[in-house]
């Protein structure tokens, strides 16, 4: 494409065709989706494969479009102006011989990338169109009309094993049979305990002493404990009498029971 011979930033040499193109775009500037969209539309006027497009020509067309909009006092969104500035820069890079001093991408590289972007956008548009043209569910292809819902039932299953059962039963039965025994144990004064105590005490009891005097201090107040201790002590006393270590007497019914050590002399 012929680049403007006397290129200058301010005065854009614009061909009639480009003016017309720009004019056409201006009419519908709101219909465009940004500068890339405009560029893609402009590129169509070149009627070539997007890969062979002249970015320089495209840049000129775009700049003409922006100039025209300015002339018509049409408010263009900022990104259109950013693109214009960038394309003006690109144009200068493409026109001027490469500056060996300057690093960064060359004009050709920038142009190639813009061409890639345009081609990619076009490809996506074609793909979108192809996608939308496919057989669509609910328009061309249909799902089952009379849906049979899958009934979801949640069953709670209770687990209990024979073992659980037997243990439960054992728990109940053992509680019944033995709990009283376990409970009373704390308040039961056994004969063994009483014997132990008596054997220790009797040596010092040469005189008749009331049975109750043999009860341990702690067992005297609580009636249940007192009763248990009394019985055990009495039983122990009988045992010791039987063994010949002790004498026992009661003067009358319900009279105090008295104990004393069996004297060795007699």
């Amino acid at each position, binding site marked *: 494409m012929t680049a403007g011979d006397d290129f200058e930033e301010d005065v854009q040499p614009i061909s009639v065709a480009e003016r017309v193109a720009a004019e056409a775009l201006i009419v519908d500037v709101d219909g465009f989706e940004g500068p890339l969209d405009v560029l893609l539309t402009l590129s169509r006027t070149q009627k070539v494969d997007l890969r062979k497009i002249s970015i320089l020509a495209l840049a000129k067309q775009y700049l003409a479009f922006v100039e025209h909009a300015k002339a018509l006092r049409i408010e263009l969104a900022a990104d259109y102006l950013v693109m214009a500035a960038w394309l003006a820069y690109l144009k200068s890079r493409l026109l001027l011989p490469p500056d060996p001093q300057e690093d960064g991408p060359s004009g050709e590289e920038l142009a190639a990338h813009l061409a890639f972007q345009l081609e990619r956008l076009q490809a996506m548009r074609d793909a979108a169109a192809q996608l939308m043209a496919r057989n669509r569910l609910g328009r061309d292809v*249909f799902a089952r009309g009379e849906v049979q819902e*899958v*009934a979801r039932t949640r069953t*709670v299953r*209770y687990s209990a094993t024979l073992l659980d*059962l*037997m*243990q439960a039963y054992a728990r109940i039965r053992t*509680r019944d049979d033995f709990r009283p025994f376990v409970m009373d144990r704390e308040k039961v004064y056994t004969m063994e305990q009483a014997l132990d105590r008596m054997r220790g005490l009797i040596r010092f009891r040469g005189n008749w002493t009331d049975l109750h005097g043999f009860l341990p201090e702690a067992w005297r107040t609580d009636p249940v404990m007192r009763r248990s201790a009394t019985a055990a002590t009495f039983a122990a006393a009988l045992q010791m009498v039987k063994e010949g270590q002790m004498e026992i007497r009661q003067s009358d019914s319900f009279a105090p029971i008295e104990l004393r050590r069996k004297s060795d002399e007699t």
Partner: protein
Amino acid sequence: MKDEDDRETDSLFEAPPMGEQERMVEAMLFASAEPITLREMAGRMPHGCDPAEAVAHVRKRYEGRGVRVQRVGEAWAIRTAPDLSFLMQKETVEMRKLSRAATETLAIIAYHQPVTRAEIEEIRGVSVSRGTIDQLLELDWIRFGRRKMAPGRPVTFVVTPEFLDQFGLETARDLPGLKELRAAGLLDNRLPPGAGDGGESGPDDEDGVTGRGQSELFEE
């Protein structure tokens, strides 16, 4: 099958081949939200089609398949084969451990059947909630037995064959007695109630019970 002769039988229009008509009927039956009448099918199909015949063919084609073409009143529909209805339910099973109250109540019924509620309460030492009995009834593990010949003629409870099945017993008499329980090392009432040791599986429980604990209690 032949009895729907309310169709236009002959047509001057060239109708699609019957194979095509079958496809059409198949698609309509599938996509329709409700059963379709032959009249409606005819209205949708190209001129000259014979939906009655097409339906008959499709119906035949689906014989013995997973779905079948069924007549519903004056219309036709595709329906799941009755023997496959189980596929239309998704059952989620949630395992829960039977509560202590329920287990104990069940045990008492099993060991003492037929037994009245009052007797259960006496043995357990606590009252038995209605919910517990209901739950066991619902599980089909207990049922009502004969009324007791006692004042008020109270109902009794007995265990069911389902119970025996569940617990792998021939009869309730097979339940081990206390002596056997002790011999098996199963008596340990120090175990936390309802044993929190995930006792789904027997062996685990057994492990949990091996500790001596209060089995001493049985030694007089």
